[in-house]
């Protein structure tokens, strides 16, 4: 599928249809998840704050997913020298920074009533903060270079070096004694079924929303680069 979409024309045609579909899917899933989230019963231990699970966990998982997409696009851009892959990486970075920041903030709001602290320096939180800082560093590096191709290559290398953080974030709750909750969502039977529906619906909404926004942003990148090329041509 990636080789099919590598052609910009085909990508534009594909995303013209796919982006609105994903957007509608995201909106519907989000509304359904929110409605379910408000109507589920309170948790016997956490009370009403369990509802933050339906916001915090999808944010956090999507943040990591976006970094994986960023690193994958950067890899394709570096290895195959494909400018569409570079455009995809550039487009994904602000989305990833925003979502992972939301993940940190919603987690902080959940931590205050549950743990009594806005922030703790345990393995999961620290490595997730580093993930956020990698997004920021990526965007900072790109913004600071004038030559766009060089900026894409250099920040691609940085994105790949930072990809080492992804397994660290994922396994941090297993490798270290962490205050943060361990693997619950994807282990069958560990979470009450009535909570699973809104959580997975919201996760699907975030994934679909990211897909829609990413496609739209890549389209914008393609047009921007074309406009730049035309401007350069016109000035000759």
């Amino acid at each position, binding site marked *: 599928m990636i080789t099919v979409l590598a052609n910009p024309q085909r990508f534009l045609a594909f995303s013209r249809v796919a982006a609105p579909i994903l957007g509608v899917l995201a909106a519907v899933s989000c509304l359904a998840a929110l409605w379910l989230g408000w109507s589920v019963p309170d948790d016997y231990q956490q009370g009403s704050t369990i509802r933050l699970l339906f916001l915090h966990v999808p944010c956090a998982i999507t943040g990591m997913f976006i970094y994986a997409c960023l690193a994958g696009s950067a890899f394709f851009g570096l290895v195959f020298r494909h400018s569409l892959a570079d455009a995809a990486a550039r487009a994904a970075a602000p989305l990833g920074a925003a979502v992972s920041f939301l993940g940190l903030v919603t987690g902080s709001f959940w931590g205050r009533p549950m743990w009594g602290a806005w922030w703790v320096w345990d393995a999961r939180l620290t490595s997730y903060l580093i993930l956020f*800082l990698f997004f920021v560093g990526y965007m900072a590096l790109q913004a600071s*270079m004038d030559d766009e191709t*060089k900026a894409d*290559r*250099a*920040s691609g*290398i940085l994105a790949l070096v930072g990809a080492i953080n992804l397994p660290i974030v994922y396994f941090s709750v297993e490798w270290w004694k962490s205050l943060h909750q361990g693997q619950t969502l994807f282990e069958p039977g560990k979470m009450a079924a009535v909570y699973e529906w809104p959580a997975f619906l919201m996760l699907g909404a975030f994934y679909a929303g990211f897909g829609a926004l990413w496609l739209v942003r890549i389209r914008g990148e393609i047009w921007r680069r074309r406009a730049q090329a035309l401007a350069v041509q016109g000035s000759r």
Partner: protein
Amino acid sequence: MSGFSVLFKRELAMAWNRGGGPAVALAFNVCAVTLLPLASGASLDKLKLLAPGFSWVALALASLLSLERLFERDYEDGALDLLALGPAPLELVALAKCLAQWICTGLPLAVFAPVAMTALGAPMSLAPLTFLCAVIGGLGFAFVGGVGAAVSLGARAGGVLIAVIVLPLFTPLAIFGGGAIAGLSMGLDWTSGLLFLSAYSLFFVALGPFAMAAACRNALS
């Protein structure tokens, strides 16, 4: 191998002679270590809890200082172009630069680290482990910093940008190194922290030169 020794001697000479070499980094470390007790106004017994951690922070920040000049100097006067065209691969050049950086800046800072810690009130029994961790950590700081410096070649606003890029990569070194020393001071296990620190440093010694060479080639193209 003679190519490597020529490159290495050149990098050592550049790191030692120009820019003040280890003296500047040591002076910075002294100033940073001085700031903590002055800013917190704490007595020695309160400071000694923070001493291992803070001497690591000072080590990391002092390693950041000379990073900007690592590739920038050769990039600006065209020497990096010549090195890229020469018989030695750019990976070897990057390796020589980072090793010279470690020997000229990292090792003197590693010798100073136990002094800094003792000045901040930590017991002398922690000194050997601090020195060992600072030596290995200095290697990690040099190579990780080298990746950050190479990646931001040709960027505007060099110094702060390198810090923003490199500090997230420094955090595991700080966590493991500081954790090992803190473990020893509390009588807990310190070997695992030391082993993880060594693993992280050696990982970047092995793979860093490839990333640095790719970044240099990108900047030169």
